[in-house]
């Protein structure tokens, strides 16, 4: 049984989740989390494909989908940004 996490959404994702500020997902890794999010909210699949950054307890991951989601971690989805 995977752990239940609150996933905070950034502004652009909220409309795709019916305006919710955050959603609840049962997952143990970033990969599992995105799989569940994709099922629950098909509207987000495009965004997930384009790339979403995940902040876990303040550490920002853009590509490492194997990273585990610790118990009661603070999780934020953020746009995948470009730098110069």
């Amino acid at each position, binding site marked *: 049984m995977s752990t239940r996490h609150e996933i905070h959404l950034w502004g652009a994702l909220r409309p795709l989740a019916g305006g919710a500020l955050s959603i609840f997902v049962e997952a143990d890794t970033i990969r599992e989390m995105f799989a569940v999010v994709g099922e629950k909210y098909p509207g987000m699949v495009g965004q997930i494909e384009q790339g979403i950054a995940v902040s876990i307890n303040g550490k920002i991951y853009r590509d490492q989908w194997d990273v585990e989601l610790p118990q009661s971690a603070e999780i934020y989805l953020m746009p995948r*940004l470009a730098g110069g």
Partner: protein
Amino acid sequence: MSLDLQNPKLVEKKFKVIGSRVPRPDGIDKVTGRARYGADFTMPGQLIGLVLRSPHAHAKIEKIDTSKAEKLSGVKAVITSADLPDLTKGDRMMLDLLENSMARGKALYDGHAVAAVAAIDLPTARKALKLIEVKYKLLPHVTDVDEALMPDAPIVHPHIITEGISSAPMKPTNWNKACEYGHGDVDAGFKEADHIFSRSFKTEQSHQGYIEPHSVSASVSPDGTAEMWVCTQGHFVYRNQCAQLLGMDASKLRVTSSEIGGGFGGKTHLWAEPLALALSRKANRPVKLTMTRDEVFRATGPTSSTSIDVKIGVKKDGTITAAFAELRYQSGCFPGNWAEVGAMTAFACYDLKNVKTIGKDVITNRPKTAAYRAPSAPMAAFAVENVIDEAAKAIGMNPVDFRIKNAAHQGTKSSYGPVYGPIGIGPTLEAAKNHPHMKAPLGKNQGRGMACGFWFNFGGQTCVDLNVTPDGKVTVAQGTVDVGGSRASIAMAVAEEMGINYEDVRSVIPDTSALGHNDMTDGSRGTFSTSMAAIYAARNAITVLRERAAKTWDIPLDEVEWKDGAAHAKGAGHGNRTPLSLADLARKAGRTGGPIAGHAETVADNAGVSFATHIADIEVDPETGRSQIKRYTVIQDAGKAMHPSYVEGQYQGGAAQGIGWALNEEYVYGKDGRLQNAGFLDYRIPVCSDLPFIDTQILEIPNPNHPYGVRGVGETSIVPPLAAVSIAMTNATGVRQTHLPMSPPRVLKSLKGKK
């Protein structure tokens, strides 16, 4: 590769090579003129490519007749968008790239490509361009960010409807995207405040201004294989995107990155490269396409112009009770998410109970914007830091102490959402407070300003291949383009890890056929993530070397340790064996299992955010509004400075670019929507006599996520200058400066307002 090797916690405590100022491997080539940049490459039988560009800001292309040009002797290919079919399978971002490289039915800005030719020489290609007849139907245009949001503004793209708002409007708009960040209750927060400060700001569009214009040489063969020599910040990304846009196999498109004459974000993006490939494919000859400076300004990717409102509520004791900003960013003729980045970074330096930022990305008839060094953060910092400065003064607090009181720290909930881990803004502020610059006296008509800046650093995908040569030296091949000296840092990391001399490591950047995909040099990732991968590759090579030594001595692997560039037998029985040096093991490699190498393919996420504090002194001529920077200091955390000279160089370069942006750099558009100053004469980047020496203070707070504690340093240094210089100007003139650049006419006008 086993995880423990990749454990960043394995931090080398005492460094032998890291932190020294060794000569860069590309130094001699660059001081003797031998280094080969984009335009320095020639292919046998090469044609010259030129691009025909729209003189109009917004126009329907009713007809393009290329027949006369095609008939001209010496012309080998002429292309239009018809030669670049849409193969993007609904990927709108890729289609935008394609459409930006060549207009599809509509010219969207002054300088938008409409056709291109390849001919045997430049004069012939120039003649051919003149023979192409384009029938335009002019459309109304808009180039200002605020005007583009007016209800009656001309619409740039009929297909765009505002994204990111729950009640999405049904009709087309230039407002392509909305976003919102923050937490708490700002309205309640403003009610708590003793004072509320609010202002509106504008910044004009600036360009990265790299000295080397874009140049690409492409050779496409009928069998589908192709080569491209190009100046880019990321040859793997160029390969992937060009292959997709032209329907080629990435494996068959071999891209070599030339020495790059500056990028700062402007060379992270495709411009004319697809055209060079399409011309070569059509002509079945190599094609070299080099932009003129005029084309670089008109048709590559400057950064956004902006319009920003900031409101801050403050208690008498200096506590910020609420902070709000609306940021409108002009992204050029295609959607961008630059306002989003501005909205995330605006208040990132502060610990705020109630904060809200709204970002609006706006489309106009200007060139497609691209990243420019910490993209979007400098303008947001300019607006926010000015109101912070105003608030501090109004309540009678020293601006440094006011910032220290409200600075973000470990555990602060950031304005963009997550809670911060250990961060470095506090130390930069304390260092600024204690810096002699802060106490130095000021002269007549002089003012001092200080400001903070924040930037996200990135890591990303890196591929490094380390090989030991039979003579016991090492080559390290990295996929990350070296824009400012990273080849030196990478060789240093390998020398450090393997315990050998820096001079014995050859650091190179091979073409895309030699390594796996590697992200581009952006997001301050170059030295951070590439040195990490190089260290892991070295550790893997060391494991192989220990195995070879164990085999040679016929003892267990765990009884062989690697130190000072040699294998040492340890433990009872064979402690007295003469160590086997790298050279010994390399010479015998054939008999112990073949060539010796180490590889690393990594994703270096969690690069750690970065903060800087800058101090600027300016002198203004009150009769003309002309100003001069008298003194400038940059304070920034480098984690660990691998090569201090090049860390200082990044600090100084970012500061100089920010100073130019603050004082004189801007895109000037005429009423006709045409760019008026597409050249270095009137797009005024700082010259040598405009600047003082730029003092730097490198803080070294080790980054827990890098084996040597390294933190990216490339971008943050451009974030504070706009704010620091404008606050200095405000203090020198007594008038709050709210519009950048602070060109003499603008400053003089603001002084008139005062009288």
